[in-house]
């Protein structure tokens, strides 16, 4: 999948300024001296004064720049001192700071995919995207020595070679954009398994979940999806598969058959391969077996989710042999499950 970092350190982004507005010609623009920041400037701006950080850069898009005005900038107000906000604490392992999509085009169209928390953050086979015409600062501290991903795009350039990207990381821009105790490394490896691959973020589960605040729930039997930090109201479909199962195709199928229906408009559905610990044969040591977890949320009590789960199980039962599905069952937060149907 493609995972796109949401925050930016762009001059034009109002939310980056403490006065919640882009500075104009009567304003004093203040970057605190010790702030390490790479700022992308998209257009021309008037300034009264700009205090630059001791270490930082301004990337100037074509047509971008700065000028001063004689006298007062009309329409700018009396002039204030406005400070560029701190982006020091924004962490790679914060699921809220990423958007996921199946393709680059879907990213641009805003066709985002829902994922459990661990998989909202880039997985080892994901393509990571930092928006073109944009800069950023991300803390890549990890519980592991490195943060492996398939590729990284920065400023419109896609890095696929790990040595090339490690050069970028020690370039001036790279040092301003990426910081933290672990470095992002490129594996440039596709997930070779059509049935999907393990995300690989369970080692950072604690780090990921520390950034998440769970909502209070109103359902009877909240569910805890594998890879998620919070219990949820909704439904989980568990699919066991055989040779021939294709996760990507199946994701499309569910979207085209069900998610486009009006009654499922507000549904969030995340689908991935997970490894569930289970006691083999009910006895002996714990083992892990891969299965496909479909998490369905509707933002309410979970009744729509339950309907959809029922539809998905029904579809799997009637078309399973074509899809490579051997078994499908669901559990809903209402307490009902496929065992009862």
């Amino acid at each position, binding site marked *: 999948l493609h995972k796109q970092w949401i925050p930016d350190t762009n001059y034009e982004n109002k939310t980056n300024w403490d006065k919640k507005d882009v500075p104009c010609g009567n304003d004093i623009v203040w970057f605190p001296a010790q702030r390490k920041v790479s700022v992308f400037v998209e257009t*021309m701006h008037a300034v009264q004064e700009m205090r630059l950080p001791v270490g930082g850069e301004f990337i*100037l898009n*074509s047509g*971008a*720049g*700065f*000028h001063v*005005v*004689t006298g007062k900038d009309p329409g700018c107000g009396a002039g204030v001192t406005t400070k560029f906000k701190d982006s020091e604490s924004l962490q790679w392992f914060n699921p809220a700071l990423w958007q996921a999509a199946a393709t680059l085009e879907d990213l641009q169209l805003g066709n985002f995919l829902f994922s459990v928390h661990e998989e909202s953050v880039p997985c080892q086979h994901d393509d990571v995207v930092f928006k073109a015409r944009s800069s950023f600062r991300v803390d890549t501290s990890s519980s592991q020595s490195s943060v492996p991903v398939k590729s990284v795009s920065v400023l419109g350039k896609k890095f696929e070679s790990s040595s090339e990207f490690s050069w970028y990381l020690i370039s001036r821009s790279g040092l301003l954009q990426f910081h933290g105790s672990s470095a992002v490394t490129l594996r440039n490896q596709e997930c070779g398994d059509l049935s999907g691959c393990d995300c690989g973020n369970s080692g950072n589960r604690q780090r990921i979940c520390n950034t998440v605040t769970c909502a209070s729930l109103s359902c009877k039997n909240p569910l805890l999806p594998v890879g998620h930090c919070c219990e949820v109201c909704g439904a989980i479909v568990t699919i066991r598969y055989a040779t021939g199962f294709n996760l990507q195709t199946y994701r499309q199928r569910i979207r085209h058959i069900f998610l486009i229906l009006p009654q499922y408009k507000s549904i969030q559905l995340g689908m991935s391969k997970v490894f569930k610990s289970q006691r083999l044969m009910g006895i002996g040591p714990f083992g892990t077996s891969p299965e496909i977890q479909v998490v369905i949320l509707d933002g309410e009590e979970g009744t729509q989710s339950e309907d959809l789960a029922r539809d998905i199980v029904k579809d799997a039962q009637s078309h399973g042999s074509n899809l490579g599905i051997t078994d499908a069952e669901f559990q809903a937060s209402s307490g009902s499950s496929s065992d009862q149907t």
Partner: protein
Amino acid sequence: EPSNTGHTRSKRSVSYEQPRMLSDNGHLVFTTGDNKEIRFATSANGRVKVDNEDLTQLMSQIKTNKEDITDIKTHGGVVPPDITNKLNQLDTKVSTL
């Protein structure tokens, strides 16, 4: 359309009024406005460098060069050895006549 022309003109005149730094298709351009300056000012032992050349020093060299040239033009340079030799020879000849 007249209003269009007016708009363009006013837009242009504005852009020339203000000194600015801008990125133009990958080139970095500093433009001054009418009667407006762009100043680069260092302090204490700060320097202005252009691709590893010390511009501050070279700019002072320009003035030294100018003064040296003026000096050469006014007082002449070193007398070429040829001339000195020739003068000495003549002097000797004349003295021994």
